[in-house]
């Protein structure tokens, strides 16, 4: 099919962005994206992920001193027309006055590639995104999923060095999103192209990304693989943003953390997480799916005791809210069948390995 070009690395060096009205969208940023990897920029709205993407694209330019490099080429001064990137927009940005085939062929038409060759490539691209034969369809006759694939085909038509995707699945509904996500994943892997993907959906980020960049208020909070981000969040923002996180405060005593209604086992002394001092207050964080809910009759000394205040049946899992006398109730999630009524006394078990993070209590938490 297409000749596989060498995938290119992308480097951002001290790229900051302030807008005309004074707002600082990005603090000076350093980022290195490996050739062929799919990197996801993840964060809440306003965190700067879209600004970063647009800087890589060439739609925005970094403030004085920032540099953008594609491989060895310094592209900082090049506008998007000259950077050779492929971009998929959030609402697809298909040209309504052109057919599907004309949309896909637009980049080729600009470069004066002859009509015969254009038509051939358009067909190949349509095949690649499973839209064979739709070349003459008008754009407004397509469904959301089809439009998204046309946008993708159009971006890939000129074999760009870099593929940029700005929340491409946000406009689709949930079921469709999952199906398209899987197709997209396969496609990106098979092409081996360097791709940067912006989203605010963590599930999407973890499914698609080789590495994830979690951003907050114009800064990078953490870069890592999905597992690293999930199991070893670098700070409280990441811990809270990715999945739900339980947080309880107690006193370190021996190899346990003492809480009002029981205690939690701490990891072994050799574990770096056990860096708190004896007798000192400390926070412990663990994920809801690691909490084992146990009937009060089967509780032992290792368990925390509490009262079940709410139960939510979510179909594939059940969520429990349990009051243990801490600041906030503990959230537990299990996919096993088992049901307790709200108001009952209940017991919890959290294995020591489930502890995601520990911190001395003197440290101020993020709101």
């Amino acid at each position, binding site marked *: 099919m297409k000749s596989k070009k060498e995938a290119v690395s992308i480097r951002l060096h001290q790229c900051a962005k302030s807008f005309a009205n004074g707002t600082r969208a990005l603090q000076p940023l350093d980022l290195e994206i490996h050739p062929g990897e799919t990197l996801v920029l993840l964060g809440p709205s306003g965190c700067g992920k879209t600004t970063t993407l647009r800087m890589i694209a060439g739609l925005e330019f970094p403030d004085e001193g920032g540099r953008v490099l594609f491989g060895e080429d310094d592209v900082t001064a090049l506008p998007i027309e000259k950077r050779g990137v492929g971009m998929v927009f959030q609402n697809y*940005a298909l040209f309504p006055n052109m057919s599907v085939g004309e949309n896909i062929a637009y980049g080729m038409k600009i470069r004066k590639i002859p009509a015969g060759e254009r038509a051939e490539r358009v067909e190949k691209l349509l095949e690649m995104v499973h839209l064979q034969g739709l070349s003459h369809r008008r754009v407004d006759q397509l*469904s959301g999923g089809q439009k998204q694939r046309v*946008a993708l085909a159009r971006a890939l038509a000129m074999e760009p060095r870099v593929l940029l995707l700005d929340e491409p699945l946000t406009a689709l509904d949930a*079921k469709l999103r999952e199906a398209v996500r899987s197709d997209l994943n396969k496609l990106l892997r098979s092409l081996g192209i360097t791709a940067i993907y912006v989203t605010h959906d963590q599930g999407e980020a973890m499914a698609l990304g080789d590495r994830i960049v979690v951003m907050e208020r114009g800064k990078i909070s953490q870069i890592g693989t999905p597992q690293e981000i999930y199991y070893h969040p670098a700070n409280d923002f990441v811990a809270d943003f990715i999945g739900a996180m339980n947080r309880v405060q107690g006193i370190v005593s021996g190899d346990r953390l003492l809480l009002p209604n029981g205690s939690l086992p701490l990891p072994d002394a050799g574990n770096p997480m056990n860096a708190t001092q004896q007798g000192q207050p400390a926070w412990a964080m663990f994920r809801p799916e690691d909490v084992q809910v146990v009937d009060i009759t089967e509780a032992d000394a290792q368990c925390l005791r509490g009262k079940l205040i709410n139960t939510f049946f979510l179909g594939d899992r059940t969520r429990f809210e349990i009051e243990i006398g801490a600041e906030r109730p503990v959230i537990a999630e299990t996919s096993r069948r088992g049901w307790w009524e709200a108001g009952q006394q209940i017991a919890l078990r959290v294995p020591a390995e489930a502890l995601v993070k520990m911190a001395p209590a003197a440290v101020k938490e993020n709101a």
Partner: protein
Amino acid sequence: MKNAIPATPGAPGVLKPERKPGAGVRSAGNGVWLWFAAPGLTLFCAFWLLPMARLVAVGASGPDGAMAYLSVLTNRHYFASLLSTLALSAVVTLATLAISVMVGLFLQRNRFAGQSVLLAMLTFPLAFPGVVVGFMVIMLAGRQGLIGSFTNWLFGESLVFAYSLAGLFLGYLYFSIPRVILTVVAAAEKLDPSLEEAARSLGARPWQVMLHVVLPALLPALISSGAICFATSVGAFGTAFTLAANIDVLPMTIYNEFTGYANFATAASLSIVLGLITWAMLALARSLTGSGVAAAA
């Protein structure tokens, strides 16, 4: 035609059909509503509908009978008048569209101090009657006009063209630009910037983006405001009257027939024809946007 997009599984279902606003208060006796409409409709029928019907009859009451309606095509004088009206209106429309696109896009895309002031200045002449527009042209290009004084100072000879075709053209341009520019700015505001960014990402240069993306997107607005502009120009009377040009546009011809020669039948038939032309143009504009009004000039 649009295909119905099949409902995707998992899409939020529509539980009940959308209610039309006001549907709930439709009680028995729709006829009562007609009483609300009575004053307005009575006025309208008595003073426009019936007189217009009468005018159509008068138009056919002359020596030529109903053939008078074709006289705009057959009579040399009237035909020349019609042609010059249509030609002038067409040129004015094209010029206005070109100017409005350039200025409208510029204003919509560049934020700078005083931008809203500029836009206000550009639309303020909307309220001028044609006579005032004619006077403005005289101020610019008449015997004591600005351009005349300027060329006098520069070359020693005054350039006076207010009373010629050029002056008429300027006058028509003067009342057309404010009308069209508002529509263009409104349409430019609705343009999706990601379409242009997508074109740029595929390598298109500014003129290609303009030709392939921007102008096609603006086309409905341009056609409808162009039609309004054309209709207003065709029907314009006050401006031509003030400038007393020796080119007789059709409204002036009608006026002369009526007041100068008392040719009621001719005046009637010609004005019906004129009315049909302007109405058709505006119907075209409305079919594209749903609004389309020409305030007279």
